[in-house]
């Protein structure tokens, strides 16, 4: 039997009237529970709800990394019992997985949005998480003149970095021939010091 064949009752009419608000999350908790309870009892409305909440295969993102998937599922299952009951507990088994899947998909979409959106907030100390979700922050907040200045500094220093690297290679080659030569190490440390200073000047050129 399809949902078109099932008899439509007054409860079904109420279901139809409030389905849009339910899908939009605009219903109160009690009203949402009534919708879900009716769908759990009515084959027709169960089919309608399933169709309305089904996510096309094409909309699925690539599989999440195990660590993300596990943590999201753990978060879903760790919800307070009352909330879990509201969302899933009163439904028949055939409803639980679509809704849990929807929650999983919503969480994944949120993660994707966070990872792709330009991050403007300061990290809050969780460096490991920040390193995963925070893309490289634009250095100058979109200030084009500062970007030009940074490019100029970098361009003007490029040949100097090349000179420094060439000098370091020469000294390192000499050091391979005579590793115990203290004077060579003095030369090498001088080159490295100049390189470090130049890198700092370039990075601070627009600070």
């Amino acid at each position: 039997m399809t949902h078109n064949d099932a008899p439509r009752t007054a409860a079904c009419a109420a279901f139809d009237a409030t389905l849009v608000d339910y899908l939009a999350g605009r219903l109160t908790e009690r009203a949402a529970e009534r919708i879900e309870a009716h769908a759990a009892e009515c084959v027709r409305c169960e089919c309608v709800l399933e169709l309305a909440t089904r996510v096309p295969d094409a909309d699925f993102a690539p599989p999440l990394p195990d660590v993300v998937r596990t943590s999201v599922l753990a978060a879903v299952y760790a919800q307070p019992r009352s909330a879990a009951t509201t969302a899933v507990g009163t439904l028949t088994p055939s409803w639980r997985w679509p809704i849990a899947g929807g929650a999983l998909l919503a969480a994944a979409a949120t993660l994707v949005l966070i990872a792709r959106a330009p991050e403007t907030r300061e990290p809050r100390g969780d460096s490991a998480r920040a390193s995963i979700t925070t893309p490289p922050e634009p250095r100058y907040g979109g200030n084009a003149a500062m970007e030009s200045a940074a490019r100029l500094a970098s361009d003007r220093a490029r040949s100097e970095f090349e000179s420094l690297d060439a000098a370091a290679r020469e000294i390192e080659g000499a050091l391979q021939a005579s590793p115990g030569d203290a004077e060579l190490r003095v030369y090498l440390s001088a080159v490295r010091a100049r390189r470090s200073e130049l890198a700092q000047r370039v990075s601070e050129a627009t600070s």
Partner: protein
Amino acid sequence: MSSLVRPRMSSRGRRLLCKVAATLLPLASQAQAPLPVVQPVHRGYAATRDVTLRIYVPAGRVRVVVWSRDSVDVSGTIGANASAFGGGSRTHVKLGVESLTQEDSTMPRADLVVSVPRAARIWIKTIDGDIDVRDTAGELEAYAVRGRIAVHDVRGVTVLESIDAPVSVERAAGDLRVRGGKGDVSLDAVQGTVSVATISGAVTLTRFNADGRIETIGGSVTFRSGVLAGMQLDVQTHAGAINLSVPAARAPALDLATRAAPVVFPTLAQSPANGRIVARSFKGRIVVAAR
């Protein structure tokens, strides 16, 4: 009804059209007017005699001169793409120019003359601009990527850094520190302590009278004249030549060594009483000439 008859505009539509036109027409006339190339600027800030002053001008020129007043005066011109900013307190003043819009990739330009108390502590940064400072006696820090840094008759602590800009110092006393890249460094009549490091920029010392250390990677170092009595000058290069011109009658003690190039020096009556020059190069030649 003929299709050529134009529909009549409602009174509300007409009012709306009038409002839009009234808004856009002045904008259109402004867009046609040419923007001024430069705008004059003149500002003043009350300041203490040792005010800490920060100047930021990305492109153009900054000239700092001293005057005998407890205030900071800024005059000059700013480019059409720039707006001037400034403020602070009597002890700390910050001024400069910035872009009018975030989207403008042209660096804001200005040509400013800043008059400061002699003992002011000055910090200047440009990206593509010239810096010229005269007669200060406090602390001076100047940074430039490209352009030129020129300092005259300064005392106290002086720090000059550039990537591509040549640096010249005339008549400085105190502690001088120069960090350069490609630009040449010229020091004339410098006293006190000096530390200079460049990468490919040449360093020239004239009328040098300071304890100093000069380092370059590819740039040459030339000591043209100076009195080093009681002082020591350390010179080190990687590939740059070291040229020393010392007085034949009062030659300092010379300690010269290079690993892969000749050391050329005449017979001289050296004496530590005349100072000491230590020169080292990885592969640059060292030439000493008597004068």
